[in-house]
Structure formats: structure tokens, C-alpha cells
């Protein structure tokens, strides 16, 4: 073992220049700030919308139960103002559920195809085309829903109205599929090749390899992919504003028009005078959306953690 150096010996060693040392510390601090800023922004946003919504929560004329579970939404009524978001919550939930029922099989199937069955030559172009779907702005999707998809739905199902739950669900599915495919494919790529080699050595067919070995191994990543798709669908505003018919009602069939929480806020916030009850209730709807997304992400986190423990 060498003797530790004394002060004078340490001072005589070649050192890095001072600006390099401080530069590195400054960069480290900057990167740390960027990381922490994400948390700061989320807290700041939550604080801001909660502050705008709070006064109406404690005013006498507002009933939180009626807000959450009332079906009547009449914010600008001349005789009887009622704020009931249940129909909107059901609208959001139903269109997201329908979108996931369509998008998850297609998305995961496409991810498995790209990862396992695809010829190498068409893999990259296919991935690029699917990512192109993600690049389409949501207002263009809404326009497609309003013009093209509505005519298609009327022709195929014979429904009287083309802008409805089905229209919104299909459009949202098309918007969520690229996310599910990208992240799902990454998750499958992350499964080590040794799994595949071991399974094939044991004599499985390609399909058995996929559903017996790969999908269970990539469970976390695939679930994360699906949940990100859900997040996109719940938060989508412009596309559902145009494609769902914007009607406040609880749907009784797939071809009934509905309205989502997001579209409701987008349509009404512009006209609500700042500081009025209507304005504050719309911010409260924002808080509600925030809580729903938070709950979905928390559930996802717990499920993934539970899956990981197994």
C-alpha cells in the first residue's frame, strides 16, 4: 500500500484546470435541475388548476356529489344552473374503453409481428410508416372522423348519425396504436435472445414461443405500452370534440353521440368569464381529469410492480 500523499505532494500533481472542474459541477447542477423540474412543473400545474377551482368548491351553492354524479350539465342556464359531470365522465370512459378494445389487439399484434415475424427488409419501413400515424395532428384526426369516418359508419351500420361513440373510439384507437406498437416493440426487443434460443431448443413453434415465453417476459413493457395508449386516449381533446357529436348524454348504444370531459373544457372555457362559477367549475373538471389520469397511472404502477414481484 502506498503512503497517502501529504499536502505539498498533492499540490505538485498535475491537475485539471479550474474552469473544467467548475464547468463540470455546473453542468451536473443543470442536469439535476432539469430532472427535478419535471416534478416542479407537475406540482405547479396541479397547484394552479386547484387554486382556480377552489373558491367554487367551498361556496354554498355548489354540491360536490351533484358535480360528480349529476347527469345534467347546464352551466349557462337562465333559470336553473346545474353542474353535473357524470354523463361526461361516462363519455370519456366509454370512448377510451372502446378505443382500447380496438387498439390493444391491433397494437400488440403489430408489435409482435414487427418484432418476431417480420422480414428484416420491411421492418424499418413498416416502423417508419406506423410512426407517421403518430405524427398526424389530432385536429386532422378529428376532421377525418367528422367527414370520412362518419359517412363510413352510416353506410356500414345503418346508424342515423355518423358522429358518435363508435366514431370517436375508432379515431382514438388509430391515434393510440402507434404508441402501443413503438413501446411494445421496444419491450419485446428487450427480451434477451437467450430466451428465444432456449425455447426453440426445447422444440416450441414460433407462435408458442411468442405467447408462452416472450409475452410473459415482456409483460411490464407491454403493459406500460397499453397504459400510455390509455393516457393518450383519455387526454385527447380535438379529435373527440369533432368526432363524437358532442352530446351530453349517457350512451345506450355504440352509435349514440357523447361528450368527453376534455372536449367539454375545450368548448366552454373560452366563453366563461374569468372568475365566474362556470369558469371555476371547468377548472374543477380539469382537477377531476388530473385525478383520473393519476389514478390510472397509480393502478398501472401497482399492477406492474405486482407483476414484477411474481
Amino acid at each position, binding site marked *: 500500500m502506498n503512503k497517502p500523499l501529504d499536502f505539498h505532494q498533492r499540490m505538485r500533481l498535475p491537475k485539471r484546470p479550474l474552469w473544467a472542474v467548475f464547468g463540470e459541477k455546473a453542468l451536473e447542477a443543470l442536469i439535476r435541475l432539469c430532472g427535478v423540474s419535471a416534478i416542479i412543473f407537475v406540482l405547479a400545474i396541479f397547484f394552479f388548476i386547484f387554486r382556480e377551482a377552489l373558491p367554487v368548491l367551498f361556496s354554498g351553492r355548489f354540491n360536490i356529489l351533484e358535480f360528480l354524479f349529476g*347527469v*345534467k*350539465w*347546464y*352551466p*349557462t*342556464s*337562465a*333559470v*336553473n344552473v346545474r353542474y353535473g359531470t357524470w*354523463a361526461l365522465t361516462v363519455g370519456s370512459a366509454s370512448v377510451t374503453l372502446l378505443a382500447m378494445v380496438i387498439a390493444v389487439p391491433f397494437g400488440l399484434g403489430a408489435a409482435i409481428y414487427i418484432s418476431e415475424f417480420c422480414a428484416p427488409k420491411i421492418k424499418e419501413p413498416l416502423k417508419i410508416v406506423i410512426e407517421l400515424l403518430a405524427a398526424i395532428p389530432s385536429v386532422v384526426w378529428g376532421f377525418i372522423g367528422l367527414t370520412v369516418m*362518419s*359517412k363510413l359508419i*352510416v353506410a356500414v351500420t*345503418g346508424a*342515423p*348519425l*355518423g*358522429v358518435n361513440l363508435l366514431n370517436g373510439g375508432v379515431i382514438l384507437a388509430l391515434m393510440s396504436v402507434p404508441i402501443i406498437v413503438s413501446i411494445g416493440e421496444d419491450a419485446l426487443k428487450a427480451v434477451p435472445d437467450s430466451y428465444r434460443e432456449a425455447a426453440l431448443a426445447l422444440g416450441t413453434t414460433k407462435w408458442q414461443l411468442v405467447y408462452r415465453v416472450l409475452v410473459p417476459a415482456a409483460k411490464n413493457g407491454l403493459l406500460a405500452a397499453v397504459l400510455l395508449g390509455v393516457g393518450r386516449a383519455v387526454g385527447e381533446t380535438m379529435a373527440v*370534440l*369533432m368526432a363524437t*357529436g*358532442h*352530446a*351530453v*348524454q349517457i350512451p345506450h348504444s355504440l352509435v349514440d*353521440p357523447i*361528450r368527453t370531459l376534455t372536449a367539454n373544457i375545450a*368548448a*366552454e372555457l*373560452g*366563453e*366563461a*368569464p*374569468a372568475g365566474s362559477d362556470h369558469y371555476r367549475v371547468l377548472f374543477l373538471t380539469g382537477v377531476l381529469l388530473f385525478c383520473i389520469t393519476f389514478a390510472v397511472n397509480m393502478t398501472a404502477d401497482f399492477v406492474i410492480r405486482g407483476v414484477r414481484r411474481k
Partner: protein
Amino acid sequence: MPHSSKGISRLSTYLFLLAAIVFLQCGGTRKKPPAAVIQVKGSDTMVNLAQAWAEEYKRVEPAVEVEVSGGGSGVGIAALIKGTIDIANASREMKAEEAEQVRHNTGKEPVEYVAGYDALAVFVHKDNPLTEISAEELAGIFAEDGQITRWSQLGVVIPGARDDKIIRISRQSSSGTYEFFRKRILHDKDFKLGSCDMNGSKEVVELVAATRTAIGYSGMGYATAGVKMLSIAPRKGEQAVAPTVENTLNKTYILARSLQMYTLGKPQGAAAKYLAWMLSDAGQKLVEQSGYVPIPPERRSRL
């Protein structure tokens, strides 16, 4: 010719920068900043008319820039209360509370100018056999406690429709058209929920034209070949009045209304000239062309 890869990439970088600079220079004549910018916002019913005015005014006064946006009468008045615009278009009258908020927030008094008249028409699909309807039946269809939900209750059979349910097409609650219909037909009672609340006047007509069993209301000027306008009778059995220019001016049509513009105090400078131009013969010609009813000649401004 450098053969190291670093040399080639540096050369191509310089060439690219040179090309970029050359490209940026040939951008045509540089535009002068406008002498004045007039912000106009509000009624979706009036937005096409406002656009037409802005474009025509560019030919009259090229130095003045007029920026027009829609969003609904409520949005325009809200912006006027905030003081961010010069002229608010509204297809309904400003409410007393809104005028109070204007005074309170900006310290100025809102001034109203009538820019034209409009008739709100009730539209049905062109294959719908109905030609007239009474105001009571309309209330029965659209009001919250209305009992009319099927076309058979009106004695109408829609050809080619599988389902008999009446599909109501309405506007979003920020719309002046919405509030006007609610005041005149529903007598301030609320609309029945479950109607498709469209963003603009044009969308209502387009959706009605695409839906056989639909009924909706929108500005008279938005009629297309795919829809039919119904004549409205005050009560069942009385004479039904059609939405026409004469019936709007002589006030026999129940859904006739005035199109308003509001400013903060008396407008000054460029905005005042623009307002006077819109209310003159030149501006009113555009009102007629857009499908609305112009103000009678004796009440126009002389320019």
C-alpha cells in the same frame, strides 16, 4: 479536394449555410408593418361576414390590418370584457351583467351598433316531408321537459330512415344563436340534453344535410342544397311564416334578430373609420351578399 470525412462534412456544411442564406434573401418584397391592427372577435354566425368585410376593407385601406376570429358571441363579449379586442361581434344582445363587467373591468361604457339582421332558420334534411312547424312543437322537441321525441308524433314519416327518433342538432352554449333560440322558442327554459352541440353555424347545416332524421337551427345564410328551411307558425293551426328577407325586416318571422357590434366607448381612429365603412352602403352590400338582411338605407352611415 479534401478526402478526409471531416473535410467533406465541413465543406457541405458551408455549402448548406450558403444555400440557406441565399434562400432567405429571395423572400420577395419585405412587408411594411401595418399602420393599425383592428381585432374583431365573437359571433360565429357573423364570422363569414366579418371575414368578407376584412378582406374588402384591405382593398379600401391597405395600411390597416383587420384580424377576425369566431368562437361564439359569448367568447367575443368575454374578450371585450378583458379589453383585448376592439370590436366584438354578437348575434345576441349584451346582457346587463356583461355590460356591468365591461364597465367594472375596463372603465369604459360598451357601445352597441346594429350591423344587419338575420333570420334563424330551422333546418331539416331535404327528403323530410315536413314544410312547416309551430313554435310550440319546436319547444316540445328541444326543451328539457319536451315530450316530442319521435317523428311519428308530428305525423311525419321520413323516407329511408330505419329509426324514428328525432336527432336534435344544436349549438354549444357559448353561441349567441343558442341563446337567441332559447329565449324566443324555449322562453328561457333549458334545452334537452343529448343534442349534438356543434361548434359553428356551418357544421349544424352540414350535419343536418348528412342525417335524415335530424332537425337543427342555424343562420338563414347558411342554407345549402342538402337541407330545407321550415316555415314557423306561432301556434299550431296559425299561418306559418317563412324565413325571408321581407319577413325579417317586417318582424313577422318569429326568429328574426339583429346582428350587433360592441366597442369599448366610442371607437377612435382606424377602428372608427372601419366601423363607419361597415355601416355604409359599401359594407352593407357585403351583408346582402352573405345572405343576411342589410340595415335600411336611411339608417346607414354616409361615407
